[in-house]
């Protein structure tokens, strides 16, 4: 069976819990981090047989992986060392004010070569609304430290559609990114009200508003600004300078297999998707226990391809629109109601037997995907 080239490690610790966040995370608590790192390594040991000799990408997400101490990072990477080559893209998610220059140098030394920095915004008011525990200044300092430590591939996370965010506030954030910091990559996320979050409750109570027109405008504003600054809009929420697109995320979008380590991490390997227990204490006891086993059918794969590939610059192969059970010809698909009318509406474009979202289509990727399945 074909080996797995991609690995994700979930580090569920956060100093402070953001009220909009739906990831599996918690405060470090009294839990011994030694034991946690040991558990990750023992899960790796148990499941490494599926991995390729060298990984194409390794991604440490969270939570806040940059909260791990230098010692723990070093221990973890000693175990990962055999799977990393100089060509492996090794990303670590980091938050401002969680590392200093010394730690950043160690991160660089152990083999991390890409940092995704959780900035979200540089505006004090917006950061307050989001309940982040760092300032815009912290974010700039963190970025400078990373550069000084030698990171030449940095991504900055930004958020928009935040209550109180005007076009000009958003423009200030975009300007700081493109004129001041100049990262290689930007992820720009629309704030969404996720299940089981404090924000959703406050949204439902009417305290936090959502405005489709404003969201659309802020979305277009980001596209225009970042593209003008030389970033390629290669996925709905992701922009990269040429050659700096995230290889790890692209692996998800193209349906590649990946191994997930750590509590709540999802693996998809040889047609089976499973999740490690989303409970740190139990994970430490039995690191290989899984939940939510799913065997993916061809039709599942097809629907996932529509959901994800439509969002990318490479577009979706037209034949994906035909259901697995009732194959159809490309000609019939082209003449089918949703495709014809969405083309007329200027939401999609067809080129080289692929479907691409237009600028307006990108803002409506979800209902378009729904119309195509």
């Amino acid at each position: 069976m074909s080996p797995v080239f991609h690995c994700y490690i979930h580090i569920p610790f956060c100093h402070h819990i953001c009220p909009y966040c739906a990831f599996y995370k918690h405060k470090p608590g009294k839990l011994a981090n030694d034991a946690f790192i040991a558990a990750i390594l023992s899960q790796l040991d148990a499941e490494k047989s599926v991995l390729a000799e060298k990984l194409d990408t390794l991604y440490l997400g969270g939570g806040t992986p940059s909260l791990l101490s230098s010692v723990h990072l070093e221990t973890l990477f000693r175990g990962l060392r055999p799977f990393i080559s100089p060509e492996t893209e090794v990303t670590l998610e980091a938050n401002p004010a969680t590392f200093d220059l010394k730690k950043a140098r160690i991160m660089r030394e152990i083999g991390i070569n890409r940092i995704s920095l959780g900035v979200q915004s540089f505006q004090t008011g917006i950061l307050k609304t989001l309940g982040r525990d760092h300032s815009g200044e912290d974010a700039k300092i963190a970025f400078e430290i990373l550069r000084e430590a030698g990171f030449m591939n940095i991504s900055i996370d930004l958020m928009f559609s935040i209550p109180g965010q005007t076009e000009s506030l958003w423009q200030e954030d975009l300007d700081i990114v493109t004129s001041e910091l100049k990262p290689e990559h930007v992820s720009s996320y629309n704030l969404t009200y996720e299940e089981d979050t404090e924000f959703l409750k406050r949204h439902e109570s009417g305290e936090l508003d959502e405005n489709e027109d404003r969201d659309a405008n802020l979305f277009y504003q980001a596209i225009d600004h970042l593209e003008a600054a030389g970033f390629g809009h290669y996925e709905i929420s992701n922009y990269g300078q040429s050659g700096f697109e995230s290889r790890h995320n692209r692996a998800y979008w193209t349906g590649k297999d990946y191994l997930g380590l750590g509590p709540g991490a999802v693996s998809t390997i040889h047609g089976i998707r499973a999740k490690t227990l989303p409970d740190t204490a139990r994970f430490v006891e039995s690191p290989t226990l899984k939940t939510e086993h799913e065997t993916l059918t061809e039709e599942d794969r097809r629907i996932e391809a529509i959901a994800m590939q439509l969002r990318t610059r490479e577009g979706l192969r037209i034949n994906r629109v035909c259901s697995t059970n009732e194959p159809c010809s490309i000609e019939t698909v082209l003449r089918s109601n949703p495709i014809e009318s969405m083309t007329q509406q200027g939401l999609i474009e067809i080129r080289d037997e692929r479907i691409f979202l237009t600028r307006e289509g990108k803002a409506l990727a979800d209902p378009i995907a729904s119309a195509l399945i």
Partner: protein
Amino acid sequence: MSIELTRNFSIIAHIDHGKTTLSDRLLDFTQTVAKRDQQAQLLDSMDLERERGITIKSHPVCMEYPAKDGVTYQLNLLDTPGHVDFAYEVSRSLAACEGALLLIDAAQGVEAQTVANIHLANEQNLRVIPVINKIDLPSADVPAVLKQLEDILQIPAEEAIQASAKEGIGIEEILEAVVARVPPPSTAEFENDSLRASVFDSIFDTYRGVVSYVRMMSGTINPRDGIRMMSTGKTYEIKECGVFTPKQTKRDQLNPGDVGYIIANVKSSSDVKIGDTITGTIRPAARPLPGFKEIQPMVFSGIYPVSTDDLEQLKLGMGKLQINDAAFTFQAESSAALGFGFRCGFLGLLHMEIVQERLRREFNMDVISTYPGVIYKITKTDGEDVEVDNPSFLPEPQEIETIQEPMVRAYIMTPNDYIGDMMKLVAEKRGELENTETLDGTRVLLTCLLPLNEILVDFNDKLKSMTRGYGSMDYEHAEYRPANLVKLDMMISGEPVDAFSVIVHRDKAEFRGRHLAKKLKEVIPQQLFTVAIQAMIGGKIIARESITALRKNVTAKCYGGDISRKRKLLEKQKEGKKRMKSIGKVNIPQDAFIKVLKND
């Protein structure tokens, strides 16, 4: 028992004036029903009847009453439906009687239905015995009611009997009056002894088939006799005959003047027409009894299953209801918005509600009905006359010479304080005031001509709320009249939505069109493109709304851990699409239509 000792009568009353209570009391007094068999309001035997306090089917009962003159009489009481929807059945029941107790609530006085009832009784030349009921109530005002009797109904006050069905006051006096004042069935009818029996109702019994209720006019009926239904010419053989005690009780023979039932080898109650005359195959009567009419539905509406899987079940249920309710008609139809369903005909609004309610209750059907309509008579420019009960079949405007609509004559009773409001309501409903009568110091009786179409939906509710419950209304069907009517179509993205097409008066079309367009806008979800909702009359747009296109709807993050959730969401949406109706390019959840129809 000899004909001389038979009395056939019914009780007529405004709703809640005590008809059912008095009937029970009469059965009780004549010991027709043993005490232990009694349950409150014995005659309203269908659940729905008991709950709503209305009588839907006739419930004849035969009582033996030893009168004060020492002779025992046979009293046949025909409890009739109390609602105008069943006016024809009422008229047939009354035709089977020689007298009627007119019941008036001592606290409420004469009401609209009392007036309409008196008209019906007079048409049948019945001897009317006025009974003032509920005199036990502290609020009873007998002198006022006596005055109303004379002023409004032209009945001498001294004929009235004062009673309380609840307390058992005046019961014997009522029975004595029936014996003394109601004439026995006329013997003049019987000179020719050919069989003639009038059918005044029928029910379907699962075990015994169709049971027809008859009033014997001349001749006799015995088991194994051959009979002929005079309206259809079909012949049958009598299996059983009997009377009501009030349970059906077999007898060897039915005689002139009797009220009873027959069972013959009839398959479906649609073969037994109410008002028809039964005669013998041997020595048949030359002419049927007068008054027979084919029952025609007056109100039409589409009934659709909420879930398409229920279609067959719904058809089965309707079939079963029809066996017992020949006035209810249904016919398969399909609608772009609602799928497959049935075009149904009813005697009136109450009848429609009852059918819907019984489908829900007895057959567990979740149904939705379209806006009710009536039968229009159209003369086309080429001279052809057509009748239309479904807006979809209305000819094109340029082919129409005239459209006529059915009218009703309504009797509206209202306290003086609300006359102004009432007149406004009548005018709003395109009504025409024919007569105003002052009843007493506090109330008036308005007689007006109204289009049936206008009182179908909310007229009675409005009347009640406007008069704080003190107003009342009853009506009878009147003639057809020409009117400036048009067909209003609703369009979504340029395609008509048949379920919302209605025939309305030109002056009201715009308002209704605007209203419907707004409602549809509220329930149709935003789409990837702008959706136009238009109200149209004969190609001309009179109202429009538009649903702006979605602008942004996109998941922010879509990575390894999010994929399954995302796929399941899409699968759910795909499943949901199956329950959508596609009109033009627009996918609309069926329950959106249902919401509009329900709140309208």
